[in-house]
């Protein structure tokens, strides 16, 4: 059952944050850092709306999606961009909900973290637009509108890094912008080609329009789209913008860039390519998804290795994000309901865990004015809440039970192993190379445990250093968001059904739609 969005729920979740950015700009001059509360309330409203949809998906088995369609641009002759369509279903709702939740709690975190910064009204205005851009990218199902939102999340984040960042912030922001923009242009090429060949911009109509089109053409379009998405996801070797951007961004923004934004690339891969190009997903010559699996394996191992070598705590987390995106891509490339479900769960788990970790790094930076792990140590007894949150964050990344990360990795690897051994319908045969790749990926995930526990040990165990001698726990307003997210990761870890129920239903239908009806 697909419901019409008569009460404008979906439109509100995007437009209200965007509209309030103007309010923030005007009122923020007087409110200063307290503008954060405005942003908090606005985004909390969005979270509640999406939380309602998610709850409905969980509780009502017959409910499938909430859809909205609006006319936006007039047709030019025979050329039409189609309607502006929004859709909250089992796939997009959890992703969008995590984004709004992160944006909500991080706006509180920003209040304290950014207190001594200048022109905070602009910070929060950009913050709200950035949030609206991310939510819009996830909810929208028109490719042209998708591109608009894709750019809308780039520009504010570029400004946020360039103005409030640290170090060589202008240079880093420029690098970030150029990389993502280059990717976005490739994405645009793919979208335009899709529009002309399939004669539609609606994601759900592409597959019909692509029927009868040669596999080579479809592959070329998909590669163009994927280039754009892979830059966003920071898949090896397109990842070099990410460590710079995440390290130099103001920490609240790092805590959004990494957990919320880059994963949208993976989400879009499921949304666009799985839905629109079934022939490419199940292609046998070349085995496109197997190549992606291999790429994912390299990304996750390479990211893990790089994280192991870092001394800068934010760069370490940044490389860890690259590694986690490898996991996500691995799940997506498994061509199985289980693996794709795992990828969605990984988005959720990585979102929560990495936001916790980046916020923890922010607490450390705020207290000790350093990002170097060498200068920290012995903090466990002095900052117990921070220590527990950090441990939980890293345990989440390494797939520890009791935390949602366990289910994510369990499903990702099961999915890939299942396809390797049983194949997918009659389209994909069991494959020995895939068995090998999956085995390597499982064994390779020891790296996550390695860099995680090593970091915990270097920061929280041992003797205090000069800097940490007189350390005390961070302020409550910074710890509260961390604890909320950590608790959420724990709740979802014990009962993942809250997210997985709706997602699995949608994904299993999506996967069965890959099989052509003869």
């Amino acid at each position, binding site marked *: 059952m697909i419901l019409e969005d008569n009460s404008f729920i979906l439109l509100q979740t995007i437009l209200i944050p965007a509209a309030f950015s103007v309010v923030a700009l005007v009122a923020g001059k007087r409110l200063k850092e307290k503008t954060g509360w405005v942003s908090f309330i606005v985004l909390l409203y969005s979270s509640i709306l999406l939380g309602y949809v998610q709850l409905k998906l969980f509780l009502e088995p017959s409910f499938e999606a909430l859809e909205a369609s609006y006319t936006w641009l007039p047709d030019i002759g025979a050329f039409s961009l189609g309607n502006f369509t929004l859709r909250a279903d089992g796939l997009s709702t959890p992703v969008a909900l995590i984004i709004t939740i992160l944006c909500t709690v991080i706006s509180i975190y920003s209040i304290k973290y950014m207190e001594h910064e200048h022109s905070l009204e602009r910070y929060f205005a950009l913050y709200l637009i950035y949030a609206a851009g991310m939510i819009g990218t996830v909810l929208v199902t028109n490719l042209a509108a998708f591109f608009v939102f894709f750019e809308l999340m780039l520009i504010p984040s570029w400004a946020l890094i360039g103005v409030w960042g640290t170090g060589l912030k202008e240079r880093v922001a420029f690098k970030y912008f150029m990389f993502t923009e280059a990717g976005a242009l490739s994405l645009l090429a793919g979208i335009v080609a899709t529009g002309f060949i399939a004669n539609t911009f609606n994601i759900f109509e592409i597959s019909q329009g692509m029927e009868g089109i040669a596999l080579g053409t479809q592959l070329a379009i998909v590669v163009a789209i994927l280039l754009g998405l892979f830059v966003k996801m920071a898949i090896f070797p397109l990842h070099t913008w990410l460590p710079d951007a995440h390290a130099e961004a103001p920490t609240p923004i790092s805590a959004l860039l990494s957990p919320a934004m880059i994963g949208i690339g993976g989400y879009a891969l499921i949304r666009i390519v799985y839905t629109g190009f079934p022939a490419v997903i199940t292609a046998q010559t070349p085995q496109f998804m197997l190549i992606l699996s291999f790429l994912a394996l390299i990304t996750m191992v390479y990211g893990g290795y790089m994280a192991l*070598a870092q001394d800068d705590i934010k760069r370490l987390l940044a490389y860890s994000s690259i590694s986690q995106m490898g996991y996500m891509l691995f799940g997506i490339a498994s061509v199985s309901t289980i693996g794709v479900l795992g990828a969605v769960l990984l988005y959720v788990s990585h979102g929560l865990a990495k936001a916790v970790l980046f916020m923890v790094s922010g607490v450390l930076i705020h207290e000790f004015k350093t990002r170097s792990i060498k200068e920290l140590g012995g903090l466990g007894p002095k900052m117990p809440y921070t220590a527990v949150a950090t441990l939980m964050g890293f345990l989440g990344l390494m797939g520890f039970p009791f935390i949602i990360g366990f289910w994510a990795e*369990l499903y990702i690897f099961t999915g890939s192993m299942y396809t*390797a051994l049983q194949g997918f319908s009659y389209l994909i045969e069991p494959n020995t190379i895939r068995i090998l790749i999956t085995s390597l990926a499982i*064994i390779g995930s020891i790296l996550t445990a390695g860099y995680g526990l090593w970091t915990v040990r270097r920061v929280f165990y*041992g003797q205090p250093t000069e800097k940490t001698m007189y350390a005390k726990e961070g302020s409550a307003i910074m710890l509260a968001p961390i604890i909320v997210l950590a608790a959420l990761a724990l709740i979802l870890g014990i009962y993942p*059904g809250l997210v*997985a129920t709706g997602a699995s239903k949608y994904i299993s*239908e999506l996967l*069965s739609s890959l099989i052509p009806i003869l």
Partner: protein
Amino acid sequence: MEPITPIIGIETLPAWLCWLFPLVGALFSPILAKIHPKVRDYGAVFFSFLSFLMAAMLIPLLFNIELLPKWEILPWIDLEGLPVLSKIEMGVLIDPLSIIMANVIAFISLLIMIYSLGYMKGDPSLTRYWFFMNFFIGSMILLVMSENLILTLFGWEGVGLCSYALIGFWYKDSKKDYIERWVGEPPEAYPPSHCGMKAFITTRIGDLSLLLGALIIVAFTGTLSYIGLLEEVQHLPHESMWILVPAAIFFFGGPIGKSAQLPLMEWLPDAMSGPTTVSALIHAATMVNAGVYLVGRIFPIIYVGSTVYPEMISFFYVIAWIGVLTAFVAGTQAMASNEIKKVLAYSTVSQLGYMMLALGVAGTTLEFALGYTAGVFHLMSHAVFKAALFLTAGAVIHAVESRFLHHMGGIRKEMPITFWCMSLTAFSLMGVPILFSGFWSKDMILESTLLAGQPLIFILAAVTVAITCFYSVRMIALTFLGKKSDRIHEMEDGGHHVHEAPKVMWIPYAILAAVTLAFGIGSIFPYNGIGIWLEHTFEGYLSKFIEIEHHLSPVSISATEAALPQELAVLMTIVSSLTMLLVGTWIAYRLYVKRTVDPEKLVGSRSALKSMWTFLFRRWYINAFFYKVFIYPTISISRWALKHIEESGIDKFNYVVADAVKSFCSRFRRTHTGVLNYNVIGMILGFILLIILMFVALVW
């Protein structure tokens, strides 16, 4: 097989509560700490007492095995449209194995929690201590009670986390604490936090291997419920069963890591840097048994599988050989260790090897019940006596404030109760006949190797008996007998006197020593001793699932033909184990009790002995090997790759492209001079180019 239906009712309630109580108790620790530290301490012990009560309520079921297995499942995860793992239930499984395990765990935990009241008194971080101890007990019982592998994994990783957190409990890693709280001697001396991490990562490697095996299994069978797998494994298509052989062996990686078997054994000796209570509970009596338990849990599944697909039997050979090699290697390492807890840790590894080998040989023969029972029986008796040994060692460490054997000696008079408890339990470890549980369980293991027709394994296992006796006697002699060490003299000069442990500490280990005696005496009766009764129980229970007459595995039949007749096997076992006992004890007695030859001079006098001693002292270089081949290279590769691939490779390339564009633009910019003459020339050239192009296009 009889149809089995899930039973839901009040009688299964203890099976849930026995792990829920400690988990809830863990959450209560920080809350109770706000009221009063004493309330917190006794509250924590109270929750473990509740768990003990609940586990004990399951015991009557052991006498009605026709009612077993009982299981109760609650819906947990129910996802539509997944080919596998779409339904995961939260369930408990009550069968002889889980009842015995839960009781061993709950009983020993309770005693160790009481002991902790004395041992950990005055520690500033007791809230953390009680939290993780109770969380551990809950996770451990959850591990053994759960009905499917997913829930088992929750307990499995939960105990791993507690182990990590409690090994590194004394997080300060201060050099001041070297004598008491570190582990090892240079060049292999490690602070607690290092050891915690080492333990977690090493076992994690095993867990990933387990996960790999489990995923292959689930992709084929579609279930991870133990009961479900038992049914499923008989109906699998024959042509795809080959993959279950590597899957089962990968699966065994988990037990290898958790139970510290070769090659992942080196974390356990280093785990001794935790508080002694932790070593006793987690790294001797309970958690390290989880691997043995899991093998026991999947034993019927693989065994039934091998009746359908004979190659599956190689799984059992792998287990048996890894077990016996571990028993031998770890035993020899214990002979050369200078720390009391490390001797016990190596000994634990060695004894775990015995249990593994018993389960392994059991799978290769039709008489599976003997080996299976021997493994479980040894697990029980080892848990009791090794926990007691650790607790007595803790009392000694408390008294002399050092972990080194050469800081002890001559304190028998001062600590008589501790001395006797340690000696009695060490006799059990050595397998001193008749009165001690270790004798019965170890002999059962040796006998089962003979009955399975594995003479090589038997010989190695028997030699290990001599080794066990050697290091046990050496440890007791160095701890309690002989002259007082310089350190004790110094302490006495400073007014500190070594004295007996307080009641709250010695009563728990005295109880454990009594239990090991009770097990030993209870096994004497030839027809209804504990060992025999266990064997009947397991035989009766397992034969519900394993139909012997359908067992067509050619490998196991040939193995059975090579086996000895039972009377001969029993005789050989007793003779050889007694001989080995006497040999090992006699050598150690001469060297360390009588001191007819000074062992240090003896080692120093011969270069062959010296290098052998170094080889054992450096742990066969296994530990050094892992650091040299895996740990350090991984870190240096990552640093190298960061510098050469990431920074001056991929990222450099980006900047090269950017610079190339920039320099091209800046050169091209020079042509934009604004001088009219140049512009006119440019225009003319442009026109000419256009004309040529048009010309070419027209002609072509």
